[in-house]
């Protein structure tokens, strides 16, 4: 079983829809959670980061962490065609040795149709 599970999709939605992307994880030591966006043939870019449980909002994007359920989400409101990309979740533990490393989900491919 992978430490981080992410539905690969593909997910296709109409423009303006609310998108929900999710990851589950098994390692209770994970404390720091990130979402990356990767456009086709480009490197991933950091979109959102959160520390421990709770919500964080940035414009149309909201990241949510539920540590009790080991579940994280990224919500995209009023989705746009420019949001079409692969979204990867990533997380790290807080112990000094492994905290440098990130564990990634496999990514969800999202297409927003105009």
């Amino acid at each position, binding site marked *: 079983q992978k430490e981080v599970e992410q539905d*690969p999709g593909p997910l296709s939605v109409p423009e303006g829809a609310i998108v929900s992307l999710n990851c589950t994880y098994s390692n209770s030591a994970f*404390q*720091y959670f*990130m979402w*990356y966006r990767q456009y086709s*043939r*480009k*490197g*991933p*870019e*950091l979109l959102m*980061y959160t*520390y421990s449980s709770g919500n964080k909002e940035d414009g149309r994007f909201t990241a949510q962490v539920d540590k009790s359920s080991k579940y994280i989400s990224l919500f995209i409101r009023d989705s746009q065609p420019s949001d079409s990309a692969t979204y*990867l979740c*990533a997380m*790290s533990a*807080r112990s*000094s040795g492994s*905290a*440098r*490393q*990130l564990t*990634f*989900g*496999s*990514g969800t491919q999202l297409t927003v149709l105009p």
Partner: protein
Amino acid sequence: DVKVTQSSRYLVKRTGEKVFLECVQDMDHENMFWYRQDPGLGLRLIYFSYDVKMKEKGDIPEGYSVSREKKERFSLILESASTNQTSMYLCASSFGTPSFTSPRSEQFFGPGTRLTVL
């Protein structure tokens, strides 16, 4: 802005050739990483380095080696390229060791090198 650059966007090599992939970051980051990304398999860590001349194996180091002679530069070497090493190679860098008061550990990625081995 953090900038991570990779020496080539596209590379085509033949089986058995020695291949060098170069990565440079300009933010004085301590940590640097090499991943490969394949459809359905996600990002897999090949090697990482947290200091000059230091290296640690990742999940799939076989067939690869690395070199970090300067803090800003991290090289990935394929000693004898094989067709199963055809992939997208991504370099990343990050700040030092996360701590309780400063837990951030996000990595910044380069644009990637798409390597094809014929």
